[in-house]
Structures are given as C-alpha cells and as structure tokens.
C-alpha cells in the first residue's frame, strides 16, 4: 500500500518541467559519498488486511486489566461523544491556527479550554496546553526563575510525584537552577521546615507542592502563599485536575501558577500518552507564560473573532530570548478535555469525583478489614491511598494481574498505592477484595 497519486505519464511530464531526467537527478546536489543507495532493511509493504493481522497479534500480547492503579494516570470515564468529535478531520488534520480566518474552530475550542482550566483552578489566565503535567511543572519552575530577581533555585515538596520530580531535576540541571527538597512528615509537606528554608535560603524563585500529593493525601496549604510571597517566591501547585471539582482550587490557596496533567479528565490511559498538560497563572504573570495563548478580538467585518495572541513571548519571534521553546503542544487533547468538561458540566465533574471518593474509601476500609493491610499515612485522601501490606507487594501485584486486576502501584516493598475512579463498580471492588483474600488463602 502507498499514497502516491503520480501516474507514469505525469511523472515524466513533471520531471521535464523540473528540468531533470530522473527522480535520482533531483538529488544531484547530494554528494555521492553520503547518498543512501541500498534498500532499507524494513518489512515488505503490507496491505490493510495484513496490517490488521499484524496488530491483532500485538494486541493479544496486552492484557487490559481492571484498573486500580493511578500514580498520575487514571482510568476515568470517557463519554462516548468525545472520540467521535475529535476524530473529525477538520480538527485532526489541521495545524497550528496561524491563519485565523480558516481556523476559528481550533481557536474557539482553545479559548474554551483556557476558560475551563481557569475555572477548574480558579486562576486568571490559562495557556493553550502543555505536553504533560511533568513538563508543565518544569516550565513553571523556569517561569518562576525568569520572573524572579537573581533566583537560582526552586523548592519542591518531597510529596511531589517522583516522576514529576525527575523531569524537574532534568530541566533544572540543564537550564541551570537547583531543586531543593522540602522534607515530608507522615506523607505531607513539612511546613515548618519550608518556613525556615524560605527564611534562610537565598534566591528561591518558587515553591512547588502537589494536590492530592503523590501518596493521594489531600494536604492543607493554608499560609504557604503568604510564606512564599513574603520571601518573594512564587507559589506553584500541581493538581490532579479532576479532583479540583471538589478540592480547594489553586487560586483559592493563593497560588501564582497552577499546573498539572489533564489526563484525569477522561483521557484514555494509552500506556501513558497522549495526555495534556495545563498551565494557569495570575494576570500579572501573563507575559512570562510559555506556550500559545488564544485571545479575543474583532475582524474587519466587526465580528467577534479569536486569534493567537501575545506571540512576542514565543520562539518564532523571540528565538533564544523566548519564554520557552514550546510551540506545538497537545491541542487535540485540549479539545478532548474541553468536550469532556462540556458534557460533564459543573454537576458531572462533582458527581464523578464523589463516586471516585466513595469507591476509594469503601475499598480502603474493605482492605484494612481483611487484616492484611494497614493505612500507611494518617492524612485525608481523595481517590487514591497507600496501604502497608504484610506480604511482598510485587508478588501481590503480579498475582492480581494473573487474575485480571491491576491492584495498584508499588511504593516500596511493603507499600501499595491504590486508586479508584467512578468506573469501578461496587462489584469490581468486592471482586478485587475477594481475589486478594483467595490469593492469601491459597498461599496459606
């Protein structure tokens, strides 16, 4: 199979207009020593039937499991209309909306996306999306460094997802800022240490915390904003956005920048991507923000119109002086969550969050009741929690997987982290508990 429409007559006519005798001659400017003259070592071309067979075979090597894992990627409900709309080729096969006159579809939904992210986070401003929550956090750190005066470090809570922290460390190392850990106490950010760090350390551009934190605990961020601002640092919160339907929003905590991953808004897990990152900030910081921003304007017929704006921040204008190198982001996935939030609405996001919360607490108590598990931390949790297991967590996860369940994510040898979404019925949950009991009884 191939997608070339050229007939042999057309080929010869076009070659003659191009002033060459053969396709090969089109490359006469490439030195012979570096020409590629053999066949690629690749499989032969496949027909659609063969392609389907090939992937049928790969698909059988995957076991979709009933998912109780989270750690930054959640199995939330995806309303059926979304996939059908995002597959519309006018959205799917377009590019960056530089030509506003024929891109109002994209520009409109980005404006809606920005509006919805600002609502969920209760921040003033949002951009058009970031790659994922981890890179959005790293970009927020760079934004804080750029906004600060003589700043060379950010503080990051020990309760930040270690995968996010790893990306933050990567960016910090190469961009040239330090990431200093705020220690944890019983699974929560140690606020008294943070306070002394802010008063003793010089050049702290920002403080980064996570909600719910990596262990699923909902932390109390009261007073952090004041601590940050009196130290002339920015307060950055990374949140699991779906949980903000219920939880106090970054804007309500006094955050300057809110970032995170949008995957929890119904995006399929897809082995980790594509998802979408979001970044919101206060109005004051808008010109420091990385990435694309869509703004309201008018056209020359006096109609309301949307357009990419504040482009003077961006790489194609500012080159090495840009606020970031990001250009293409995750636009289609921004459309995904925009449709998700349109379908769910104010009530739907709350109801889904409520179900996730209730299911998680139900499972938590049922597992503790088996006697094999104990709560690992004391703090309140939302839909994800850590339990200490009296056996080996790896083998528990493996044995559950053999029986069709992804029981959770290993934190350490004896700690498992488990997440529940609105997709998990009471029956699913009871079955997981029964399965674990059976595994234990069989072993005994």
């Amino acid at each position, binding site marked *: 199979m*191939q997608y070339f429409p050229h007939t042999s007559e057309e080929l010869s006519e076009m070659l003659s207009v191009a*002033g*060459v005798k053969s396709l090969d001659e089109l*490359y006469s400017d*490439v030195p012979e020593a570096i*020409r*590629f003259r053999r066949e690629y070592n690749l499989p032969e071309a496949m027909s659609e039937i063969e392609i389907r067979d090939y992937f049928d075979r790969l698909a059988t*090597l*995957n076991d979709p*499991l009933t998912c109780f894992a989270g750690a*930054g*990627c959640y*199995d939330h409900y995806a*309303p059926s*209309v979304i996939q059908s*709309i995002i597959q519309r080729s*006018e959205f*799917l*096969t*377009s590019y960056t909306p530089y*030509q506003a*006159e*024929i891109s*109002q579809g994209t520009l*409109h*939904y980005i404006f*809606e996306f920005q509006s919805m992210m600002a609502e969920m986070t209760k921040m003033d401003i949002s951009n058009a999306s970031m*790659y*994922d*929550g981890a890179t959005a956090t790293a970009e927020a750190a760079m934004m804080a460094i750029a906004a600060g005066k003589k700043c060379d470090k950010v503080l990051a809570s020990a309760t930040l997802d270690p995968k996010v922290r790893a990306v933050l460390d*990567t960016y910090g190392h*190469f961009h040239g800022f330090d990431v200093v850990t705020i220690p944890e106490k019983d699974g929560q950010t140690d606020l008294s240490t943070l306070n002394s760090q802010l008063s003793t350390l010089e050049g702290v551009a920002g403080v980064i915390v996570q909600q719910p934190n990596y262990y699923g605990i909902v932390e*109390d961020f009261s007073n952090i904003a004041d601590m940050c601002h009196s130290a002339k640092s920015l307060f950055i919160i990374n949140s699991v956005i779906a949980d903000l*339907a219920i939880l106090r929003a970054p804007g309500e905590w006094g955050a300057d920048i809110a970032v995170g991953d949008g995957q929890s808004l119904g995006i399929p*897990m897809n*082995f*980790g*991507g*594509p998802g979408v990152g979001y970044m919101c900030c206060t109005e004051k910081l808008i010109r420091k923000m990385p990435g694309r921003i869509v*703004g*309201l304007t008018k056209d020359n*017929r006096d*109609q*309301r119109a949307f*357009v990419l*704006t504040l482009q*003077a921040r961006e790489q194609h204008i500012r080159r090495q002086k840009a606020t970031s*190198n990001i*250009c293409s982001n995750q636009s289609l*996935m921004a459309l995904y969550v925009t*449709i998700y939030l*349109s379908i*769910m*609405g*104010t009530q739907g996001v709350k109801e889904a969050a409520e*179900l996730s919360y209730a299911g998680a607490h*139900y499972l938590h108590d049922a597992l503790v009741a088996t006697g094999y598990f104990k709560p690992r931390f004391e703090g*309140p949790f939302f839909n994800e929690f850590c339990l200490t297991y009296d056996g080996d967590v790896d083998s528990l996860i493996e044995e559950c*997987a053999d029986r069709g369940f*992804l029981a959770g994510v290993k934190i350490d040898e004896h700690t498992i982290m488990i997440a529940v979404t609105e997709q998990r019925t009471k029956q699913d949950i009871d079955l997981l508990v029964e399965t674990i009991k059976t595994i234990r009884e069989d072993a005994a």
Partner: protein
Amino acid sequence: MNNRLYGNLIFELSRPGRRGYSLPANSFGKYSTADLPETLRRKEEAELPECDELTVVRHYTNLSHNNFGVNDGFYPLGSCTMKYNPIINEEIAARPEFTAIHPLQPDFTCEGSVAVISELRKMLSELTGLYDFTLNPMAGAHGELTGLMIIRAYHESRGDDARTKVLIPDSAHGTNPASAAVCGLEVVEVKSLTDGTVDVEDLRRLVAENQGTIAAMMMTNPNTLGLFERSIPEIAELIHAEGGLMYYDGANLNPMLGACRPGDMGFDVMHINLHKTFSTPHGGGGPGSGPVGVRKGLEQFFPTVGAFNGNFGVYIKALVYILTLGRENISMVGPLATLNANYIKERLKDVYELPIEGLCKHEFVFNGLKDKSTGVTTMDVAKRLLDYGYHAPTIYFPLLFHESLMIEPTENESKETIDGFISVMRRIAEEALSDPEMVKSAPHTTPIGRVDDVLAAKHPVVTYRQILSE
C-alpha cells in the same frame, strides 16, 4: 469547512440544570467528600457549561466547519509537512487493547505495547542511520531540547564543562535557538551565503574563535530554504575535529527518505517529527512526537523528559505508516515530495521572485511577487489563497527575505491538485496588478475577515470569565 461564521462559545449555550452525562448511582453508602475538612474543599464551584448531549455534539461539529484540515484541501504549509494522515493509522491506534493499558502495568501484561515501542525504535534507527532512539519527547521542540541535553551530558561526562555554545545558522527554525537557551546553552549564529547555504568560511572562523567551547552545531538539511547543504561532510568534519557534536533538526527529514540518512551525513544526534515525516496527524497543534536518535555510545545519556512513555498513541500511527509503505515504497517518499516542490517552483518562478535558482528539495521559498509595484505583499497573497480554498504557505519565514513565502506540497498531492494551485497562484499575481485593493483586503469569502492582532495583544481577553466582566 464552510464560509459562514458559527461563532458561539459553549458557555453561551449553557442553561442551568441541563445534563449531558450519565453516571451510575452511588452505591457506596456512607462515604462523602463532605467528610473532608472544610478548609480542603473548594469554596466556589467551577463554572462549567451545563448542556445536553446534542447541544454539545452540534456545537463542536459546527466549530469544525470553521476549520480547514488536510482532508479539506491542499495545505502547502512550508516546514510543516502536511501530508495525508492515513485513516488506517487512526483505526489501529484506537484499539482498546492498546488504549486501555496503564503505563505502570507489569511488563508481562503489556508486551504488545512494549513491542510497538521497540519495533518503532529499530525502524527509525534504520531509516536515519543512527544507533538508537528514545521516543519520549512529545513534540519537535521537545526533541530538540532532549537532544541538546544528551549533548551536554556527553560533554559533562568527559569533564568538558566549558562546552556551552551552539552554532546555529541564521536560517534555522526559531525553536533551535529557543531550545538551546532552555538547555542553558549560548547561541552563536552562523551566516548564510547568498545562495542560502551555510558560509563554511564564516563557520571556520567561528570555530577557531570559540575553540574549546563549542558543544554542538544544530542544522537542518535540507535547510529552511529547501536547499541541500552540500558542504555537510566538511561541516561535520570541522565540528568533530573541534570536539563538538552535530545535531540534526529532523523537521526537514521528509525529502531525505530514500535519498540520504542523517547518520551518514555525519550527524550524532537528531530528532524526528513523527507528525511530519511519518504521517501522524497534526491535531491543530499536537499531540506530536519528537523521538531522538543518537550515535552509538550516546544512548546512555537519554534524559527523563516526561512522566511516562511519551505520546504512545502517536507511535502506533507512525508504525502503521512505516509498515504500510514498507521498504518498497518508503524510498519513494523523498523523491516524489521533491519532484512536486520543484515542479511548482518552475511553474511559478516567472511571476513570483525566486531568490535562489536551482534544485530545491521538499520545499522552496519565494520572496513575494516578482512585480512588487502595486504593494501587494506576501500576507495579501496568503490571505487571497484562502478565498480560493487553499491553506496558505508558511509566510515571513525564513527571516532571510522580507517577503518569504515557503511552499511545501508533500508527496501525496496529485498533479491536478498542484496544477490547480499553480493556476490560482498565477491568477492572484494577475489580480495583484488588475485589482490590488481587492487582494489587499482579502480574504472575502472566509467565515471571518482579517483580525485585529493589536487589539488582542493590547488588552488580552483569554477566558470567558473575562468576557463576562467586560
């Protein structure tokens, strides 16, 4: 695409109490978020739209009608490789056996997904002549940044800490210097000759001046004018002799398929835009994918640049594309893309100014109309093309010319499509003489006319809440 502005925002269709979702009843009894301490709960609701399902479906369908994609018509956007996005790619990538896999599942339960990644890495290595790839970067610019991180890590591992400069030609994509800056590197600009290629003598001087501090040279080949940099072996030798590495910006890889591999040109590190060369859809600006390939020995420096495995869904589409074309056809991609570009160039160069004669690769750049007497600019030509149902080429890039108009047709376009475009471009050149005001005020038939960019930037309104408070 239709020409009537739809114009609504979903918020304006909202009516309190409408529902578009359905969820199961809560059967978990006593548990409620009301049990959370009040200080942890939000005070003010998120004001999201409240709509029924049909309203939502119609809204987004109507919005799509105000958009233009490759499936709507010719999209010769230079540097972006707007090729056809095969439907089979989408079908396979949507299979639930792939989409329902959690990234932290035990390996033995996701061997199919792992195989997708390992197969694609192998194929990209073969296609580029490099040793290994990390697929994790989520866009081209992200790949550039990742590649530069690898280069810095390599120098650091040798204790060669003084290498903090990157040589970048003045014709480079804007992301190149921006990625270098994000990576903590200093940009040294290399001049182009009047024929648009790197001035090797200037480069030699810069290399000598910056001895011991050059981390890398970043290039795309063919360059952004669509011209093949013939001196590439000499440039690579010069940089390697100085101790630097060669970085290949894969944005322009498409014409090289079947002709020349970056690894064989002397590049050590590169990124690929799967959404350009390997046919995955651009999605209105992502999700793309920017895998980074390296010469043997550099794979140990792959950094962590994302939480999980990158944009996995995009890999499946690229893998389907490579398998579909197979070794017989993939070698034709570059030559046919190059033929299409040269054909357009030759058929239009009598009315549009071609600053640099000779063979181009997959794209080329005009410096506006040949006859500039009526004041019709590249912007006007671009806007007038929209009236005729074409997407505009890339405009005002590269910065080497004042009126750059960068055309890239890709290998998928038929001769009729291209001939249609050529005749419209010629007609616009005639209109520029016969009715310049009409061209300057184009477009006339699109859903909206030209927009006021200054208004948008002077007083940014970027959320619906701001509209309400106006």
